[in-house]
């Protein structure tokens, strides 16, 4: 039965009015910055690829480590962070029927702070005062302005975190006994994790500022690295949570199905939030100053993250099969054919999910002590995170663009643009597969990462890496083409596509599914558990590093 118009307006005003234009502006501003960073970061990636391949020599005023630092910072921090905020704020606005005015203001304040911060950071990199790579841990020391810029970026993110919390509390208060819409639940997970992830790096950066200014003479390198990976590792899982929000909730709608049991989805979010942070230690398997039993216990912690990942894989394939069969797919794999492979909104996140299989397998290699000895700091690692971030996460983000941006800009996705998206997806897939594949192999043979010249005077082992490095260059070229297409698509959909109405694809639960249990909304409890897990995991190594500290390190500038 048709709902009377009045009822629809009251209960679901977005259906008629579309997105609130003020909220759309916030999201579009963040997304614009995001894709400008992708373009610049991509160009820098190509330069690196070509330099490694020996096809090009960077000019004397621009060295490899400057480029590498900028590539890491722009893509790993700026691109992903701004995309996440734009997308999550759009989700929140959609779920709650509009943001509160003060929350929107917080998002704009965050935007301003982040821009100021990024400009400071970028300036220092360009001036060659901060070639410390995106990990910026001591003893490499950048100009103080670089670290101060990072503080601004963090403050901007916090502003966005508090915006989300305020809006959530507001909604919670006005809807007693009602579970929050699932996308808003994801947003809570993302921003809670972000807030606590950034605590570690903030402490680190605040100690590095006086150290780089010469006010304090030395710093504790091990503590710095540990605090960095507290953040660095958690950041990875923030992207992953953002991507899974689309996998669980958006993709099922696009293929015409329902989402999986909401209770399980929420459990995955809660587990990821509580267990995540201590995983940071798997980046320090080779570091001294952490005892073997502690490292061993942390292998458990990081493999614990595999549990929600496997739950996700199971749930997604269950949804695909169910939907494919409903559409008439027969036999063991017939349902696969029924999925809308020609629709970029499905194709891109689907390839992203598939690439999570090799990505996850590689991750298990990295986190295993003995195997880590072989691949540590080789190109394998670079190959690994270009598969996980560059495919699983980034391709999901790309896929989201093809409905989110038209929706926000009140335009439509034309069939032509959808086709361009499919082509983009294919080129990106080919480029990443080639580049990351050869990086994995070169790494197994010992090719080091983060090194501009790996010819080692023509040594035969080094010579054996050459052909793989040439392949990085080929992959990088494909990727650059794909970046250009993607950036074109994004800005075309934002400003030039035909006006019209685009749906925000949110899947519904299956018929007769029970609503999500209210205990999942106990964020206070989840946060306390998160803190307890962090306390237990960090107190041993940090106390040891401080009480048995070696002499600290002065700031070191190797360039």
């Amino acid at each position, binding site marked *: 039965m048709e709902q009377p118009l009045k009822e629809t307006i009251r209960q679901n005003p977005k259906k008629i009015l579309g997105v609130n234009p003020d909220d759309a502006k916030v999201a579009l501003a963040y997304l614009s910055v995001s894709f400008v960073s992708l373009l610049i970061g991509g160009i820098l990636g190509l330069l690196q690829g070509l330099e490694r391949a020996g096809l090009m020599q960077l000019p004397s005023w621009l060295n490899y480590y400057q480029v590498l630092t900028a590539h890491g910072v722009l893509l790993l921090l700026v691109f992903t962070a701004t995309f996440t905020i734009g997308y999550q704020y759009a989700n929140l606005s959609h779920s709650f029927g509009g943001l509160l005015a003060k929350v929107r203001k917080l998002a704009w304040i965050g935007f301003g702070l982040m821009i100021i911060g990024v400009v400071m950071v970028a300036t220092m990199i360009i001036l060659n005062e901060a070639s410390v790579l995106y990990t910026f841990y001591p003893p490499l020391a950048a100009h103080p302005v670089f670290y101060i810029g990072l503080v601004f970026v963090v403050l901007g993110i916090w502003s966005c975190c508090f915006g989300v919390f305020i809006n959530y509390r507001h909604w919670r208060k006005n809807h007693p006994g009602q579970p929050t819409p699932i996308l808003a639940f994801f947003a809570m997970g993302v921003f809670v994790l972000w807030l606590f992830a950034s605590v570690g790096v903030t402490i680190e950066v605040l100690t590095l500022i006086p150290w780089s200014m010469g006010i304090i003479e030395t710093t504790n390198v091990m503590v710095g690295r540990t605090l960095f990976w507290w953040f660095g590792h958690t950041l990875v899982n923030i992207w992953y949570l953002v991507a899974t929000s689309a996998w669980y909730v958006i993709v099922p709608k696009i293929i015409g199905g329902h989402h999986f049991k909401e209770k399980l989805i929420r459990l995955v979010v809660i587990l990821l939030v509580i267990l995540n942070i201590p995983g940071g230690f798997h980046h320090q398997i080779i570091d001294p100053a952490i005892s073997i039993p502690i490292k061993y216990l942390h292998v458990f912690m990081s493999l614990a993250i595999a549990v929600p990942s496997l739950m996700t894989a199971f749930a997604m394939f269950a949804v695909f099969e169910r939907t494919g069969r409903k559409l008439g797919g027969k036999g063991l794999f017939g349902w696969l054919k029924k999925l809308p492979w020609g629709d970029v909104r499905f194709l891109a996140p689907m390839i992203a999910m598939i690439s999570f299989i090799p990505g996850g397998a590689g991750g298990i290699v990295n986190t295993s002590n003995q195997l880590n000895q072989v691949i540590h700091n080789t190109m394998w690692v670079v190959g690994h995170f270009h598969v996980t971030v560059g495919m699983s996460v980034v391709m999901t983000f790309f896929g989201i663009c093809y409905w989110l941006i038209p929706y926000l800009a009140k335009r439509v996705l034309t069939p032509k643009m959808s086709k361009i998206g499919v082509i983009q997806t294919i080129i990106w897939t080919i480029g990443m597969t080639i580049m990351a594949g050869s990086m994995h192999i070169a790494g197994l043979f010992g090719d080091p990462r983060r090194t501009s010249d790996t010819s080692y005077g023509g040594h035969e082992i080094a010579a054996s890496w050459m052909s793989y490095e040439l392949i990085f260059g080929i992959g990088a070229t494909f990727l650059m083409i794909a970046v250009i297409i993607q950036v074109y698509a994004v800005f075309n959909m934002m400003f030039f596509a035909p006006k019209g109405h685009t749906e925000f694809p949110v899947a519904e639960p299956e018929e007769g599914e029970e609503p999500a249990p*209210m205990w999942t909304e*106990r964020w206070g409890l989840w946060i306390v558990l998160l803190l307890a897990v962090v306390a*237990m995991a960090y107190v*041993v190594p940090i106390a040891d590093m401080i009480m048995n500290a070696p002499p600290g390190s002065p700031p070191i500038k190797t360039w």
Partner: protein
Amino acid sequence: MKQAIYGLILYIFLILPPVANLLESIMIIHMHMQMPLLVFSGFLMGRYVITRFSSFFEKWNSNGIPGILLFVIIWSYWMVPRAMDEALTLQSVEMFKFISLPFLAGIPLRDSWKKLHAIGKDILFIYFISMLILMAWIYIGADDQICNNYLIVEQKTLGWGSLALAACVLLYLLQLLFTDQSEYQ
């Protein structure tokens, strides 16, 4: 029922010698991870025990207070440094640990928790907080080695860890106080 089986699996896992040795090799993990996990395994197994022997629990633990007292006594005993030390040196004490924590602390906790009034729960939380702060004070403050089996650095680590946990429990209480619990019904 499933819960009870998970509890049993967790229990068996925890008492496997290599697992127990690893967890006991680090002081804070011994106290703040192995022991709570043992209690937790008992808590899960309690599902079976309590329904199986419901009349027993009805008779002896009708208002939850005897059970919670037993829990507090067992728990406090294991917070004594000497008890931890002995668990590492004497096989019999180690066995007592594996029996007392799940069966004399975990199960009574489960049976009592839902029977307790709000005030009883608050008292228990305050007991936890004060116990943890007391331990923080002792372990951070002591300049001598308290346990034969653990170094001073581990002792201090345990102290700081206890302080952090006290802060977590306090935070939990505060958020209970300041959020409207009816929202979650």
